[in-house]
Every structure is written in C-alpha cells, then in structure tokens.
C-alpha cells in the first residue's frame, strides 16, 4: 500500500522520507509525516469517511482545519477519544481511527434508511410526537442513534496533562503572515511575547498558497521570522496550540497539544499579557444548494491547502463555485498543477469579475449558480444554471466552494468586543474592543494581504508604543500579485424547491427548509432558530454555516444580516480536552489534606481514618482484630468513663489574639461576657453570625491582659479567621488587635478520664495539677515529660481532662511518653466516633449535628450564654428579632428511644403521632451509651423543653419508634466529674 493514487510526486510540505502507516476503519494505509489524517485519507482516495448525524447521508472531508463540519473520527488505542475532526488529527505512528456515527461502516450504514424518512424529520419534529405513552419509551433508541463517537474509556495518567500560568507584554494569536509580522515587531521591541498558532508549523494560509514573497517562496520569509523569534528567549512560540478562551483581565486559555517535552501530553496555558493581538485569519463558508454535502464537495481553501501543503489532489476534474475572487487563486494553482477544471461557476455578474481570471484558460460561467450536485457516495457532476434558469450539467469529481470569508472574530467577541456587519465584506467584523486587544489581518476583515501587512505593521507599532516600547520600522515584504476580494453575497442559490437537501449546517443536518419551517412557526430570532433547528450547535459550532443562517434569515425577513445579528461566540473556540483544563490538579492537589505529627502513628495502630473538616484526617476509632465498630467504640468510651483515654486534638483551630483592644474584640465576637475573665482562665463561648445563627463554639483563655488564646472547632477554623479579620479590618479598623493563626504551632494530646491525673503524674510535670491549684477551665504553662507544654483543663467528654499542648517538634515524643506512662493504667487512644458518644452522653453540642444553620443558643437551652449586657455582640439583635415573633421553636432535648438497642439513624424526623406528615423535629445524634447501657439520642423538638417526660414518635420511613423526651444530658448533669 505505498502508492497513494492522488498524491503529487513532488511539492507540498510533507516529509516524504518518513512514511507513516495508519489504520482507518480497520484497513491499513500509508501517509507521510506532516500529513493530517484527512490529507492522508484523501491521498489514498478515501472520500466516503462519515455518515451524517440525523439522516446518515454519506459524507467526506470538506475543510482542512478547525472548520471541518463533517469528517469526524474516533481515535482508537492508547490515545482513544471520540469526535476528532480528521483535519486536525496529525498522522503519527500507530494512529488508529474509525468513522463515527455509522454502523457497520460508512459505506454500508444501516441507519442510512433515515434518509427515506427524512420528510418526517424536519426541525423540531420530536416536539410534535413521541408523546404517547411517554417520551421515555422512545428515548433509549433515540439516544443510541445520537451522540456521534463513543466516549473515551482509557485513562491517560494524570501527570501527562499540565497547566501553567504565563505573564508577558504581548500575546499574538495566529502565526499567519500578519501574526508573524506582529510577533516579530514585538520581539524586536524588547517585549516579552507569546505567539500561539493552531497548526503544526507557522505560516497560516501561506502554507496553503503558492505565494511569492520578496521573490522567494513565501515560506522562506516565514522561516526567517520563525528563526528570529526562536532565537529570542523572551519569545514563547507555541505551535499546534489552540487559543480557545479569552477571559477577563486579558487572559487567554490555550491548549498546547503536543508539547516538545515527551513527559507532557497536553499543556494548558493561562497566559496573560498587557496587550493581545488577534491575527486569527478568516474562515471560508460554504454555499447553499441541493446536495451540497456530497463527498467531493469541499471548501476552495481546503482544496488549496491539500494541493499545496500536502501535495494531495482530492479529485481529477474540478468545478469551482464562488461568489468572490479569492477562489481564483485556487483556479490558478490547479492550472499550474495541471488539474483539469471543468469550469468556474461565479455567481457574480460578469462586470464584477476582474483581473482574477486573466491567464486562466478554463470555462468561466459568470452569473451562474450550482443548482445541485449529483452522485451518491461521491460527487459525479453538477447542474448549473444561469440567471434565466437555463441549466447545464458539468461532470466533475470535485466541487470547490467559496461562499466568502468570515473573519475569525471568536476570541475578540469572547473578550466582549462588539461586532458589526460589514456589507462590503458580507460578514461580521470586530467593532469596539472592550479589553486591551487589537485585531489584524483577515481577522480584522482585511482580505487583501498586501494591505493587511501594511496595516498590521502600523497597528502593532502603535500598540507597542502605547506600552512604552520603541519600535523600529520593518521593511514591508513584496508580494506576488493579489486580487481584490470583491464578494457579492449569495446566501442560497435561486430556484431551490421544498424538500431539497440544501444543508446549512452540515454537521447537524440542518437544511434551508428547516430554517424556513422554524421561521414560519414563529421562531424568528436567530437564537430561536439556532435552538429549534440546532444549527451551529455541533462540534464545529457552525464555523462555516452560521453566517449563512443569518444571511438567509435576513433575506427571508427583509432585514439586513446586521439586524438579525449573530448568536453568542462562546469558548472554546474549538473543543479541547478536559484534561488540559485540569492539568496536574488531581487527587491531593484538588483536595489537599493535612496531617498531624501523630497521623502516622494513628494509621499504624489501625485507626479507621475520617475526613474531619478543614482538610484534616482524623481517626474515627481503633478496632482491634475481629472487633466490630460498635465494640471498638464501646471499649474506647468505657476507657474514658472508667479509666483513661487520649486523643489527638491537634486539628482544633487555635489563634493567638492580642493588642490594646483584644478584650473588646472578644466581647464583640462572643455572646457571653469575657471581661471578667481572670488571667490563666478560659471560658466557653458561642459565636454567632450576624444572622443570629451559631457560627462556631470554643474555649478562649486569657494569657495576659489583652492577650488571648482562642480555640475553635476544627472545621470552622478558617471561617472564623476570616470572620475575625473582617470585623477587625472592615468594621473596627481603628482597633488594635493582632491575630496569628497558630493551629499548627501547637499539637495537643488530650488525656481524659478519672485516671487522667495519674497519667500526668507518671509523665512528670512542673505544674501543680491538683484540682485546687489547677481548676477546671484553667491554663498552665510548664514542663511535662521534660518538654515545654501548655496545659488546658477543658473537657469535651465530661471527665477530668488535660489538654497537653506542645510544639509539633515534640509531639511524637510526647505522644509516645503518654502511651508509655498510661500503659499501666490501661490508656487507650480514642477516635472521633468515641468522642461523639461521650459528648452525646453529656449533651454537649456539635456543629453539623445539633447546629444545622437554623438554631440559636436559646434553642439549645444555652440562654445563659446570651449576656444581657452585650446587646451589641454580633448576631444578638437578629436572635432577639426572631424570638420576638413568638413563633414556637425547635429546642434541644434528650431522647430515650424504645428501639430494642438499635441505633436510630441520625437525622430521623419526629412527627406528630408518628404519622406520615411534616416533622416537628428530628434526631440530631444517636449513640449507644456506655453509662446508661442503652440507646440514647439528642434531638431538636418543637417546644421540646416543655415536653420533657412526654412520648414522641420518630419516623424512619416505614418504621415508627417511640421515645421519651428527657433533658439533654445523660451523665453527671452537675458536672462534678469534669471538675474533679
């Protein structure tokens, strides 16, 4: 399979020394390095490459770049992925691909039967039927028929995608003649420059042309600029990279497809520059006539690119159909390549056709239009028609179309620049910018390269000067002759009949009839037409078709295309891998996690680890071999109640707060008074949000006058920090208070249980730890186990507790010493599940359980914490307003469920009489109590405090469980034990 029937022996920019074998639809073919899949297929004479979306009509390659509407392939093997335009798939060793959306093959596709029902399938037909008995019945088969390629199912390792930030002075998008010139000027001026281009090599449309610049092939001129750019370390040149998004603050999102480093598969760039120069060129559009989708019907610019860049001739006898002069360049090229041209069909009046035809000895059909293309799986002939309706048939196997050029305004429009309709160009062009961006070349609507270059030089120069760069004049290159563009828009050919398959959106199988139907049914704005017909919603986003939709709507409604307007240009400019957006962000880079110095030890003990909020992971419980979770929890809880346990409390949020106004600040934050707190003592406090809901709780110690040590719950530490800084910097800027987060400066091992003090004695400490000298809620600094420590007597378990805070550098040693000292006393490490049991027995509240964003301290029976003298405390006013309404509230209560020892799911509603009606409360926590030897629960219940002693009904779906309402404390209500 070495002979490629349609490849020229010479010419093109492919590397003939490097043949590449590839597979398409199960067969092996050969192409060359430098080919795209599309050019290689054409070279091998493969025209029928796809089936259309809805009608399953035979389709082939139409374009040569991102505009390709029709030849979509699915890649197989290592790089498996669906829906790639074959025109953007580079030929690489091992490439395997197949057509999408046809079965078993494009040649024999079973669903092609849809073509015969096409009359029943106009735009929006599905809204009118499939209603009986219901849509879901039809959905499965319809979904299977839709969807194009299969989804990728193989994984690319995470690290193969990467994203990075880039900052510079200028970003140029497009490395065609205008982009290169702009980049060269910027580079010479000393700016830091990035130039991004979507093709494998620079040159833009010059690569597809036979243009002569300064007497040499245009690519020599390109090569010289590229060399100069590459020599400047301040220039980053990205090829095979698509700038797909234009964001705020002049930032471009770019996906580089094959970076040079082989450890990176794709790289996303988030590049930001003071100025962006868009030199994105223009995209050719097609023409609307019957069967304009047959394989062998192609854009003129694509034919030119295949011929000149890839040395492939996609036909032996061509017809060119155009409404402007640009396609004559193709005619000249075909002439010099010796290709037979059956005729140029030019819809413009003869008088409008000028010098472009000189030197072409081929039939010119001025003021003619192509009516229809003939042939099934390949075009065989066209019928053309003059203005009087006289028709002629021209045999051909290639039909090259130029319906005019649309400046590639996508990025400009994404940057929120406005567009204007230019009647001379019959297209939309950039109008007013809204960011620091300029457009040059064809992207700016300048279709004459000689002018474009001069303009680009001038615009670039002033753009650079505005930023303070000095710009040297550049020599304007001398170009071989160029003709004027001179378009006469032709939105559709004359004489089309209803039912003709004249496609306006090739990819989504939208015909001109569909547009007409939509408008007749009242969908008369372009946005409605788009959504009703799906025109422009395919993978190509209507790059060649959208302006034709607008033109036809304008014609049908006697408006100008400018009055119809465009749909919104959205990112991405062309589809990009999600992988290139996420880059290396996966696993811990998405969800970072935090370790305490004890984490390793905990894991080694077999702890079951839980996410504990704020990215910490904490042990839930420590099962020993063969033990159930409940047994482990019971064992740990009993250790605390009757012996001693220890837990790693390091993740608790901790803040050092000091300064002249620190006391006033603490008073503003908490609802209760702190002003009478003695040095060395702490107090439990509740912080409210300004809405009057509980934000956080914790203990704050007074270390010295205006110096506090505050602890917060683990999960809310960041939020509390933000809240405090906000109050200080925004509400009280004149106050002098300094806050330093010191969560990670202190690790804490909390020793708790009746034997806690014995452990401390065994450890050895410089602090007098007797209950008299070191009362509950006090803080002492001293030496413990030969290490400096800060000991706090707080208790979240209801037992005597010593929180031993040490610096992390000592934490592991301290932990081991504690375990050693505690061993004779039976000390056990305990997890968060056990702490939960212990706090429920005591009725201590937990954020996320009892506190669900709707409760205030009164609801929790903590009215005592709402100081009467501090009405200005944050959240206080809102609580009072809410309570003034007198609406009954849900109040914290205890529950003794009649559940035969089974735990009740937390969150279970309590309903009146256990009926299946709206709830009157819920179970916030439910545990097996080791002190009560039964199931106990906490809950919030409407008017709960008044209902103590009554029976209520918990409803877990079908099941109803009776429970007796109690006070929300099941153990040592007087708190003797924790003070002991």
């Amino acid at each position, binding site marked *: 399979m070495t002979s490629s029937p349609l490849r020229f022996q010479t010419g093109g920019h492919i590397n003939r020394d490097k043949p590449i074998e590839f597979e398409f639809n199960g067969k092996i073919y050969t192409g060359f390095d430098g080919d795209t899949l599309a050019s290689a297929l054409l070279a091998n004479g493969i025209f029928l490459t796809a089936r259309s979306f809805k009608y399953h009509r035979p389709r082939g390659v139409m374009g040569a770049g991102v505009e390709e509407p029709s030849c979509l392939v699915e890649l197989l093997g290592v790089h498996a992925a669906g829906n790639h335009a074959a025109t953007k798939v580079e030929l690489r060793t091992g490439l395997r691909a197949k057509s999408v959306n046809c079965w078993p093959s494009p040649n024999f596709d079973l669903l092609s039967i849809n073509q015969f029902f096409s009359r029943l399938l106009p735009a929006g037909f599905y809204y009118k039927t499939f209603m009986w008995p219901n849509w879901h019945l039809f959905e499965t088969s319809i979904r299977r028929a839709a969807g194009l390629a299969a989804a*990728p199912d193989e994984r690319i390792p995470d690290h193969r995608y990467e994203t990075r930030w880039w900052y510079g002075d200028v970003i140029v998008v497009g490395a065609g003649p205008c982009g290169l010139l702009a980049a060269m000027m910027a580079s010479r001026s000393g700016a830091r420059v990035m130039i991004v281009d979507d093709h494998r090599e620079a040159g833009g449309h010059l690569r597809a042309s036979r243009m002569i610049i300064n007497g040499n092939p245009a690519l020599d001129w390109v090569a010289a600029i590229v060399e100069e750019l590459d020599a400047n370390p301040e220039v980053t040149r990205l090829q095979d990279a698509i700038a797909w998004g234009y964001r705020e603050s002049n930032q471009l999102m770019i996906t580089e497809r094959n970076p040079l480093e082989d450890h990176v598969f794709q790289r996303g760039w988030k590049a930001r520059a003071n100025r962006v120069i868009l030199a994105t060129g223009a995209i050719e559009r097609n023409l609307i006539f019957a069967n304009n989708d047959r394989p062998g019907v192609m854009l003129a610019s694509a034919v030119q690119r295949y011929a000149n860049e890839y040395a492939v001739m996609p036909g032996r006898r061509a017809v060119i159909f155009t409404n402007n002069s640009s396609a004559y360049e193709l005619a000249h090229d075909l002439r010099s390549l010796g290709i037979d041209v059956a005729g140029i069909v030019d819809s413009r009046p003869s008088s409008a056709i000028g010098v472009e035809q000189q030197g072409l000895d081929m039939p010119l059909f001025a003021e003619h239009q192509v009516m229809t293309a003939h042939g099934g799986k390949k075009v065989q002939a066209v019928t053309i028609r003059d203005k009087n309706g006289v028709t002629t048939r021209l045999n051909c196997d290639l039909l090259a179309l130029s319906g005019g050029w649309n400046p590639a305004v996508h990025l400009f429009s994404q940057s929120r620049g406005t567009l204007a309709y230019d009647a001379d160009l019959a297209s939309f062009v950039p109008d007013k910018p809204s960011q620091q961006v300029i457009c040059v070349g064809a992207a700016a609507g300048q279709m004459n390269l000689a002018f474009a270059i001069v303009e680009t030089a001038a615009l670039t120069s002033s753009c650079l000067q505005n930023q303070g760069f000095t710009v040297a004049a550049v020599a304007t290159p001398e170009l071989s002759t160029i003709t004027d563009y001179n378009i006469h828009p032709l939105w559709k050919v004359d004489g089309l009949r209803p039912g003709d398959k004249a496609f306006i959106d090739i990819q989504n199988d939208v015909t001109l009839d569909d547009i007409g139907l939509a408008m007749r049914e009242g969908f008369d704005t372009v946005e409605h037409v788009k959504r009703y017909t799906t025109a422009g919603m395919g993978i190509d986003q209507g790059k060649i078709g959208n302006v034709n939709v607008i033109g036809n709507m304008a014609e049908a409604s006697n408006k100008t295309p400018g009055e119809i307007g465009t749909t919104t240009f959205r990112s991405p400019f062309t589809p990009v891998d999600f992988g290139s957006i996420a880059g290396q962000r996966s696993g811990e880079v998405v969800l970072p996690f935090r370790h305490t110095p004890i984490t390793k030890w905990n894991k080694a003990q077999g702890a079951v680890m839980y996410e504990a909020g704020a990215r910490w992971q904490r042990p839930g419980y420590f099962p020993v071999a063969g033990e159930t979770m409940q047994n482990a929890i019971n064992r740990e809880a009993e250790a605390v109640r009757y012996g001693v346990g220890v837990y790693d409390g390091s993740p608790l949020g901790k803040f050092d707060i000091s300064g002249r106004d620190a006391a006033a600040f603490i008073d503003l934050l908490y609802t209760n008074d702190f002003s009478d707190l003695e040095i060395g003592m702490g107090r439990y406090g509740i912080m409210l949000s300004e809405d009057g809901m509980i934000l956080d709780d914790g203990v704050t110690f007074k270390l010295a006058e205006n110096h506090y040590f505050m602890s917060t719950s683990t999960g809310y530490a960041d939020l509390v920090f933000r809240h405090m800084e906000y109050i200080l910097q925004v509400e009280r800027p004149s106050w002098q208070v300094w806050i330093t987060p010191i969560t990670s400066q202190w690790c804490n091992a909390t020793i708790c249980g009746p034997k806690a003090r014995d452990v401390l004695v065994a450890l050895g400490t410089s602090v007098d730890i007797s209950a008299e000298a070191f009362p509950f809620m006090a803080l002492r600094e001293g030496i413990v186990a030969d290490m400096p420590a800060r000991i706090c007597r707080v208790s979240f378990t209801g037992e005597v507790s010593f929180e031993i805070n040490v610096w992390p550098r000592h934490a592991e040693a301290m932990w081991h010493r504690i375990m050693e000292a505690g061993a004779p006393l039976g000390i056990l490490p305990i997890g968060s599940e056990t702490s939960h049991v212990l706090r429920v027995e005591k009725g201590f509240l937990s954020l996320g359980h009892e506190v669900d964003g709707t409760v205030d301290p009164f609801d929790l029976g903590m009215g005592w914490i709402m100081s009467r003298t501090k009405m200005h405390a944050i959240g206080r006013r809102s609580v009072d307003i809410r309570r003034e309404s007198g609406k009954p509230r849900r109040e914290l209560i205890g529950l003794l469920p009649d559940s035969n020892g089974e735990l009740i799911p937390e969150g279970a509603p309590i309903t009146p009489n256990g009926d299946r009606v709206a709830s009157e409360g819920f179970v916030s926590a439910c545990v097996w109590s080791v002190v009560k030897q039964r199931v106990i629960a906490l809950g919030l219940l409407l008017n709960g405090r008044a209902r103590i002693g009554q029976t209520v009904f918990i409803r877990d779906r079908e099941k109803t469980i009776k429970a007796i309402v109690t006070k929300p404390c099941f153990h040592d209500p007087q708190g003797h034990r924790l003070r002991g």
Partner: protein
Amino acid sequence: MGKFSAFTLAWNALSHHQNWPRYWQNVPLAKKYDVIIIGAGGHGLATAHYLAKNHDITNVAVLEKGWLGGGNIARNTVTIRSNYLRDESLPFFVKSVSLFEGLAKDLNFNLMYSKRSMIDVIQTYPKMREIRRRMMNGYLHGSSYNPINVAELRRRVPALTGGGPKSRLPIIGAMVHKEAAVCRHDGVAWGYARSASRRGAEIHQHTEVKSLLRAADGTIKGVETNRGTVLADKVAVVVSGHTTTITETAGLRLPVKSFNLAAFVSEPVKPLVDVIVNCPDLGVYLNQSDKGELVIGGAPDPGQSFRRDMKQTVFEDAVVTMLELFPAFRRLKLLRQWGGVLDIAHDATPIISQTDIPRLFVSCGWWGGFKAVPAGGYTLAHLIATGQPHEVATPFTLDRFRHLDFVVESGTTTAR
C-alpha cells in the same frame, strides 16, 4: 390544524411542512390588561398558562425584553428533583415534579421529559448524615430517596471509575432519587408559550419594562416599556436575575443578590450515563442529553454578577472535581460553556409573594428554579387570581423576612 401528534406530523410532511401554524401569535400591544407578567421565562410563561387554565384569566400580557425563553430557562442544566431537606420546601417541589410528569399531555407538546433518576455520590460522613436526613424527611412528603451501595452505584454508572478505596476521597455510598428527571429546557418555554397563546394570553417579545408605574394611592398601575406605557390591574415581576432592577424603579428593595451561574457541555458521545449524577462533596453534577453531550454544572461565581459567562476559576474547579470521579473524561472534550443571571435570596430560599406595593407580585430567588417552573407558575397564578398564597407556597412569602424567620434551604445538594 395546530395539534401535535404523529398523525399531524405525517399529514404535514405531505406538504413539506409548509402549513404549520405559529407557536405563538404576534398581536399589537394593547393599552391595558388585567394582568401583566414581566418576563417570558419559564415561570412567567407558566404563570400565563395557569392563569388561563385554572383561573380563566386571559386578558394577560407577558412582556419580554428579548426573545422568549432566552433567560435562564435557556441556560440551565435541566435537573428536576424534589429531594429537598426542609418540611417547608418539600411539598412545593413534590408538587412541581408531579406537574412535570403530566406536562407534555397538558401542553400537547413533547418536552422530552425523561424520568431517569438522580444518583448522589457520597464521599464524606457528614454528607452521608445530611443526605439520610433528606431521605427520611422526603419520605414523609412522598419524595423518594434510597441508599444503594458502592457496587450498585458502579453497576449503574460504569463511567464512574474514580473514587476508589485508594483515592483521595473514596466513595462511601450513594443515594437514588427516583423522581428526578431531565427535560428539554427550551421545550418547556415553548410549550407553555404555545399553550398560553392558544388560550388567549399575549406574548410580546422585544418589549422591555423600564419601570413600574404606581397610582397616586401607591398601588401598582402598570409599566413603562420601550414600546410605551401599558396599564394593568396587577403586575407580576418574574425576571429572575433582574428582579431588583425592576422593583427598585418603584422604590421596592428586596433581599436578593444576582449571581452568574455557569454550565458547560462536552462533545456529544454515545450513551454513557443514563442517570443524573450529583457529587455534593466535590461540587459537580452532570447528565447526558439525548443528543449525547454531557451537561455539567458547578458552583455560582463569587461576587455579584449580571454576566452570562463562565468564570475560569469556578469552571476549573468543576472540571477537576468531575475528573476525580470520571478520570476517563480527561480525553473528553469541552464543547461550549455559558452562564445565566440568577438571583439568590438572603436565606437561599425562593420568594413567591405579594409585595409592599398593593397588587405587585414577585417570583424570584430561583437559583434552582427550572424544576420549580410548573409549581412556580401554578402557585403564582393562584396568588394573582385569589390574592392568597397557595398552600404549598406559603413558606415562600416575603413575610418571613419580617421576623428573620428563614427557611434556609441552602444548596446542600449541589445539583440545582
């Protein structure tokens, strides 16, 4: 010959579909109506339909500044569900879901309503607890929500290959909400518009309300538009993100802020996921449309916004979190992204209410309000017609702010 059926479709095929009537009529704008509805989005159009159908009120004009159905109804991720948390919200959303089920027949319009279930993927215990609470509370109100194990989850969503035991956040369980559905969003707007128009309501596109007009006694009198003054006995503001822009012209300030919420679609691929997958711990959700593209949503932008755009930071977070659970999607391609302007009330709960200005009504705060379109229209029509809030909508009146008595139905589930 306006009725839609397989038969009329075939009949019209004979004439190459040249004879279908308009979906909605173009009529001149009158000077006065009984009711003006500002905003031809889902809620506005549904209100017009139910005013006519349930209350025989047809002298109604729906005024739309752009093209009908071009607001958020054109932009949402089409999740319909009722698995809310609070007793206040559940009856409303259960009602809405049940109206959706019969809607295609009610409107004689195929909305491609597909009751395909939603599966919530749970990765942390606090979320598990919250989600179980939803399960048990939902049961009381007839909204089903049932646990499945991880193996069953993977069987039902084979594409979900991430979240394994060794991953950063292993999946610990999942919940199925059977009533959840998706449906063709534009179809809902067009179906309601067609039905309202056939029942006599007028829809005026490209008619922007510039300000509200009040009579000397302070009551509402009509509106000023770019096409002149239009009077009405009653006016309802149903304009999602632009609510405050309009109400402030009458000096009425509301506890809502406007945000941009964005969504994006992948390239279309063959059937891959046939349920709605919601990942509340990671903050991303997705479903696959009938055309094959994955429709994916994440969080709203930080900060107020009247853009309809995509903020890169928020978008990236949605992508990376999606890839945590669906790592194979790295090679799937992004096709298009867009946004919409939503308003979120201070307590994150919707507002359907009479206002301080007599006979001026608002329906706003719908940041997950596609699912609510039928019940929102139904209950707003009830309120306009009877002056009383409908029983399932009583928690949603502005009265709750007088006592800061919030409902707090926050987006504890990511899916809108």
